């Protein structure tokens, strides 16, 4: 059953030099209990997609088109006040860095109690406090420490506390924005595990936002690959990993150790993310794509279904079978192409 349906969403940032098309026609759907991964480089617009859902965009950001339907209600049409009811109660957020996610002058408990009572005014303070302790136990934190101030916590503990507060109202949808990037590897794994378990326990759906395709391959049911404000490939995890149809997905796969095939050398995608200020016609990945042809620079590819439930935005998607082995070769990515040479682009790691 579909819980959240995003249709041709466009979110722009208004700047002095023009509108940045951070999200430029994105469609997604999320079912109950599903975990959806949004993968892409920083600046690809994946965070903006999440921020559009509960509309916590920066001042100059605006959803200009499209719909976000949750539980039969189009969230984009709600006023700020109407939307407040949905925030956290229905869609909560585990932030990228929990370092500054808490107000430094209140204890964690006060902040958990505040959010509970803001949405459930009938809850007594004592009940809310009890809930806060329960949540701390939930995320493997000492319940005694719930009355500490944020600055008394380490980075990992803050991240757990951030998960705790995100779960406070048992929201049907959890947005996890790079929930572990700020942490070291061992804690990363622990926390990912915990998020997975908890999600199963409270039956919520989750959108996991990350630049690390290996993280989503472990945790997600479906993956949407985001590039330049658009979704370039969207299907179930297994297909994305094993049979990517978009050259960008193939490139991403090469760049991460755990899923790159065999003892193959890691290859990063050269070049940098595209400029999104009033973008021109043409595929946004063309400048960096080893397989780009004339057509790619002239016409923007439209989403098409290459198999059931497998959507790709690429003019050469049909040739994916042939391109895939090519994409595994390092030369394909590092060889200078005429266009690149003219632009004088430098190699660029994709993180």
């Amino acid at each position, binding site marked *: 059953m579909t819980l959240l349906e995003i249709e041709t969403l466009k979110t722009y940032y*208004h700047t002095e030099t023009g509108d940045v098309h951070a999200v430029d026609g994105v469609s997604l759907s999320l079912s109950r209990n599903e975990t959806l991964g949004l993968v892409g480089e920083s600046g690809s617009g994946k965070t903006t997609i999440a921020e559009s859902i509960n509309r916590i965009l920066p*001042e*100059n950001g605006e959803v200009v088109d499209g719909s976000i339907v949750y539980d039969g209600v189009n969230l984009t049409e709600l006023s700020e006040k109407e939307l407040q009811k949905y925030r956290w109660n229905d869609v909560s957020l585990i932030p990228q860095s929990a370092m500054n996610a808490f107000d430094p002058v209140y204890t964690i408990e006060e902040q958990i109690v505040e959010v509970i009572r803001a949405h459930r005014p009938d809850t007594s303070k004592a009940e809310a406090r009890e809930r806060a302790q329960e949540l701390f136990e939930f995320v493997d934190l000492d319940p005694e420490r719930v009355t500490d101030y944020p600055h008394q916590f380490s980075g990992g503990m803050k991240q757990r506390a951030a998960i705790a507060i995100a779960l406070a109202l048992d929201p049907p949808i959890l947005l996890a924005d790079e929930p572990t990037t700020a942490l070291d590897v061992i804690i990363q794994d622990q926390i990912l595990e915990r998020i997975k378990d908890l999600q199963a326990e409270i039956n919520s759906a989750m959108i996991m936002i990350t630049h690390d395709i290996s993280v989503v391959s472990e945790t997600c049911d479906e993956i949407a690959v985001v590039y330049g404000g658009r979704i370039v490939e969207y299907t179930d995890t297994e297909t994305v990993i094993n049979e990517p149809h978009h050259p960008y997905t193939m490139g991403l796969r090469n760049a991460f150790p755990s899923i790159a095939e065999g003892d193959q050398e890691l290859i990063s995608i050269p070049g940098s993310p595209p400029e999104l200020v009033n973008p021109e016609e043409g595929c946004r990945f063309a400048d960096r794509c080893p397989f780009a042809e004339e057509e790619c620079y002239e016409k923007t590819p439209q989403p098409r279904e290459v198999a059931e439930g497998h959507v790709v935005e690429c003019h050469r998607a049909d040739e994916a079978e042939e391109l895939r082995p090519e994409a595994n070769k390092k030369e394909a990515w590092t060889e200078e192409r005429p266009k690149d040479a003219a632009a004088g682009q430098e190699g660029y790691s994709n993180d």
Partner: protein
Amino acid sequence: MSTQNRTSTEDEYDILSQHYGGRSRLRQTLAAQREIFRGERLGQIGLLLLAIFLFVGLFAPLLAPYDAQEKLRTDDGEIKRMEAPSTEHLLGTTRLGRDVLSQVLIGTRIALIVGSLGAFMSVFIGTNMGLISGYFGGWTDDILMRLTDIIYGVPFLPFVIVLVVILGPSLLNVILAIALVQWRSTARVIRSQVLTIKERPYIEAARAAGGSDVRVLYTHILPNVLPLVFLYGAFSVGWAVIAEASVSFLGFGDPLSVSWGKMLFTAYTANAIRTAWWWVIPPGLSINLLVISVFLIGRTYEKVSNPELRERE
């Protein structure tokens, strides 16, 4: 620890300037100055106002229709007491028959002299204190900063009054008294700026190349804090003008010169605020406008030096 974090001082501007970004190049050229004021409408208004005041101050004796100190009489020898504005006396006359407009124009001179000299002296002392304190650190820093703390404990206006009474009421003593207290804010801000600048590689390089401390301090560090010095200079002008007006209003000003504060003092003691608005409003408004002009100019510098304050697009 709070006492060290706090470079907060005399005024709101100090706190704002902590974030001062050190945007400085070696020499501030006129072109750079023009760049600073481009598109800053409030700053331009400030410059225009100040230019008008400077013009009036320079040519006051020529512009003034009468001798500011002269008791004017009518044709039949009567003193023109508290006459309302007329074509003959655009801003009316005082109780002793003096022309208000002429007094306001001449008073501009005192305000500008006190403002510029007072600001120069306090910024001069403050900058050097800050440079030495920040650069040498250690016990020099301890002593100078304790001294600054102590000056912060001195109530400004009462101190100025006592000093003027002790040294005698002359314009120079008023200026001296103002500078002796006012330097404290500049000193603190310059010091914290020097602390960051002295860690920069080119300063290290200059020292390694065998530059003497004095040389490094005044040819390498000073140019980098100059914009901040200008900023404080601008605000100090405003504070000095207010301080002088206050001292004069209390009757402790230079008895020989005409100043806006003294005009208000005479008007107030003559109970003219009930009857002769034309005698009261012009000097007060002049103080407002002059101080606002330098605050607007200072604010423009501050916006440049502190990107946080710049409007986002």
